[in-house]
Every structure is written in C-alpha cells, then in structure tokens.
C-alpha cells in the first residue's frame, strides 16, 4: 500500500486495518480485523472482517447490515485507488449488542 508504506508502518495488516477505520464507516461497524491469504491461483488477498452490531431481532439485523453495504463498496474502491498489492475482500460477522462506546469497541477489535 503505497501511502501507508511511506508512513513506515511495519505491519501491513495493521496498516490496512487503520486505513479502513479512517474511512467513513457506518455506525453499525463495531470492529475491523485484517488477515492475508491467497486465492487458488496465488493472487494475494486481504480479508477484512467487519464486526457488525447485532440485535435480538433478526429482521433488524438484516436491514442494518444492508445499510452498511454501500459503504463497504465505497471503502473497497478507496483502498484499490491506492494501488494496493492485495485485493481487499470484505467478510462480515455479526456481534452481540455492545455496551461499550463505539470508539472503545473499535479499539478493542
């Protein structure tokens, strides 16, 4: 990732994670983690897992998660504009209703 490399951050995964966090994330996103892998052809991938706030009502979850999707597409486009070497793939996990503040739960992710 050209820009982040320039900032001399040694951990590429952490750099990816920070970049995602610096974007305009919807409030439903409670945490971000990044891991690297390759597809079957050896193309490098970055799996970006987003933790999404859960609720007791499954119907509410689906509508909340659906609100996040356009933002995910926009973030992915921003990542790719920076000429990254790993293609970002977003995976989503629902989490339990968090009591901590949004900032605290993101820091913990």
């Amino acid at each position, binding site marked *: 990732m050209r820009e982040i490399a320039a900032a001399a951050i040694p951990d590429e995964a952490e750099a990816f994670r920070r970049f995602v966090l610096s974007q305009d994330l919807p409030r439903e996103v409670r945490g971000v983690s990044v891991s690297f892998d390759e597809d079957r052809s050896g193309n490098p991938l970055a799996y970006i897992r987003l933790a999404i706030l859960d609720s007791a009502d499954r119907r509410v979850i689906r509508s909340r998660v659906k609100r996040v999707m356009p933002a995910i597409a926009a973030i992915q486009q921003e990542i790719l504009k920076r*000429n990254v070497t790993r*293609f970002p793939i977003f*995976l*989503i*996990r629902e989490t339990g209703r968090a009591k901590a503040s949004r900032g605290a739960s993101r820091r913990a992710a």
Partner: protein
Amino acid sequence: MPKRAAALHDALLEAARHLAIVQTGHAAGGFRRRAISTAYYALFHFLISESVRVVMPRVEPPLKRWIVRAYSHSDLRAVCQQFANGRIENVRQPAQGLLAAPIAPELTKIAIGFVELQAMRELADYDLSYDASSAEADLAVFLAEDAMRAWKRLGAGQNQTVFLTALLLNRQWARTSP
C-alpha cells in the same frame, strides 16, 4: 402466448435473493453458501451475456450457446482485476491503448464486484472451514445487484466495448501483445 423465461442472470439473482433469506434451521449455512455462489454466477452470466450482445450482436442462439462456453472464470477475473482500480496503465495491451481516459467509476465498481464475488464464491464452494454469515450472503447479493445496476447506468461506450471484448479475448491478447 407462452411467458418468456427470464434471462439466466436475472433468474440466478432472484434465486440468490431467496437463498439469502433463509436464516434459521440446520441447513441455513448451506443456503447462505449457495446464495453467495449463485450471486456470483448471476454476475458471471450477466457479463458474458453483455459481452456476446455487444461483441457479436448477430449471433443466433444455437451458436451463442457454444460461444458462451468460451468465456472462463479466470479470464473474467484477470480482466476485472486490471480494471478494478480505475487506472488505464494497469490494463494490459492491446486493451490499454484502446481505452479512453478516464475509466468510469461504474466500470471499476463492476470489476471490483466481480473479483470480490469470485473470492467469496471460492470460500463458499470450497473452504470447509468457512462459516458464511447471513450478512455475507446479503453482501454477495448486493454486490451482484449493484454491479448490474452500474452497468445499466453506464450505457454504451468505447471503454465498455473494450472491457467486454477483453473478457473474451484476454488470453489471446496476452499471447499476441508485446
């Protein structure tokens, strides 16, 4: 008059929507995996259908059936990866020289959606440890719908024609270009 069947990509997208809705039961994970895979195939067949329509508009169905088989998952992925960050210099020749700047954001959105969906489909179809969430099933359907909507917004144009031609000729162009 008999009702005309929906295009394959439309039928697959509709099927993916139905599969993604299943939330509970011991087979819910299987439905979610199939939703992801089916959403990918909806976009795969949509792009092939557009490519044949634009590149070979006069082809009759019997021949079209065999032309469609010439498109490959790996070629579509390779082309979409070249278009994904919107930079013409990332696109291989001869397509690069045929493109007009800039590459429209809608075209990059389609390319990104395809690569993302193919990676999700690889997980859904082959990774035994992958536990597909309902959100990922919804995301897959969204990406396919969003890419198709973006394509319809784009309309016709030189870059779209080059993109659709590259989907078919990527491997041949790679052999002949410098």
